[in-house]
């Protein structure tokens, strides 16, 4: 027998931040691919792509402040703390569960609760994306927005090129994360349950009785 428990995982500020971030990052990925593909898209012109990319980029940058200070001043930051004990063992155990265990009747090694909003693998990816990839993409994005502030040469390579490559490499990493993030979100009580949670704030957790 399983019992479903409802936990208020996502406060309003977090849902607003997540919603804005989701929309803007999707726009950034679509326009970003268009911009660097070097071909004219008949649906969205190059100029429109630039405008959408710039506006979305600025929005994500400002929105990042909401995430940063929201975490700083609320209890949400505690979910991002990594314990040194089992630093690699814990995410590996979770990965094994996703790859094998969940199909063989194994119970989740790190079930979510009021004290654990993310499983270890989730936590590691969120930290990588939100505290490394997004800041890099923001800083390099600002650099490309104001190219005159970029160092002219980094060794023998153009500073603009290095910034552009770093920007799109991080953008690519975020895109891959997004694909995995959306897919993993379908693993839940039902494929759409986690999507409803991030809108309502309430997360359903199934517990064995």
């Amino acid at each position: 027998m399983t019992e479903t428990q409802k936990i208020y995982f996502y406060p309003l500020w977090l849902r607003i931040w997540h919603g804005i971030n989701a929309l803007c990052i999707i726009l950034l990925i679509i326009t970003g691919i268009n911009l660097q593909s070097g071909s004219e898209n008949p649906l969205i012109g190059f100029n429109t792509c630039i405008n959408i990319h710039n506006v979305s980029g600025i929005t994500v940058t400002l929105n990042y402040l909401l995430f940063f200070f929201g975490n700083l001043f609320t209890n949400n930051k505690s979910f991002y703390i990594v314990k040194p004990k089992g630093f690699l063992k814990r995410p590996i155990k979770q990965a094994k569960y996703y790859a094998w265990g969940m199909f063989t009747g194994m119970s989740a090694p790190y079930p979510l609760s009021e004290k654990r909003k993310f499983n270890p693998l989730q936590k590691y990816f969120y930290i990588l994306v939100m505290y490394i990839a997004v800041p890099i993409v923001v800083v390099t994005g600002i650099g490309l927005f104001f190219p005159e502030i970029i160092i002219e040469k980094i060794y023998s390579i153009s500073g603009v090129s290095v910034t552009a490559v770093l920007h799109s490499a991080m953008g690519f990493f975020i895109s891959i994360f997004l694909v995995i993030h959306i897919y993993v979100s379908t693993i839940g009580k039902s494929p759409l349950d986690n999507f409803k949670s991030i809108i309502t704030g309430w997360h359903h957790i199934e517990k064995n009785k």
Partner: protein
Amino acid sequence: MKHCLIIFTFILFTFYSLKSSGQWYDDPVNHSCLKCHAFQTYSFHNDLMDKEEKRLMNPFFIQDTVALKKGVHKQFDCTDCHSYEYETYPHSANLKLEPMATCLDCHGGDETFAPYQFEKIDEEVKKSIHYQVYGENFTCSKCHSQHTYTTTARNSNDVLEIVNYSNQICLSCHNDMRKYMLISGHENPKLVEIHNWLPNQELHFQHVRCIECHTEVVDGLMVSHNIQGKDKAVRKCAECHTSDSRLKSSLYKYQNLQVRSEGGVLNTIFSNDSYIIGMQESPFLKLASIIIFIATLGGIVIHLTFRIIKKK
């Protein structure tokens, strides 16, 4: 007598050899033309009033002696091209009406200058918007000063120098209302404003020649001289920012720049010689991104298949 003649010929030859490397312009103060035309003011004796006078020189007639010495025609003295009658002052009014030598007068039909393709350039100029607007009065010298012209693009390895030199030629009129009006009959549009649509405008202006977007690229010519109207200007970013870049068929025609773009192992690994911004710039990163993307999708499809089978 015979010996005297040999010595005289030797002295004359030595003197001429020295002059031929631009030494005509070494001493402008004592040069019959430059003593006036290298300075902001000039002095002369007014015979009519019988007095010494000092006047301002017309700024368009002032010559930069440093630039003269660097120019491709440095071996020529002023009167090699201009009439000897200019050596008297006041200059005869009729002199201004005499036709000046054009580039083709010296360079046309000469095998020595065949690589420069002056005739082909002349054909292209006649198709250009400049010729359409100003007719045959739009001579080569409107853009290329015979006094100071240097073959920067052919000799420099520095793209920025080539771009700046080329763009200054355009800006000398397009950023100067008086000179622009002489040709077009109306005021010059503000370049920054009409290029507002161009992303990173300043960066483009510094790194790309105006002619890259404003001419029709001709395969046989180093520099296309068919300057086109604004309605035909390149506005699509993709024309340069692709692996089949327009710049590769224009600016990078120069062998010295080709070599430069291919130089350096680090550069080869890091980027190709196209102008695509981002990871696509590096063939290695491009391949890696494709592999990672396919692996991710593959992993998801396999996982999803198992979930469907196991109803998870």
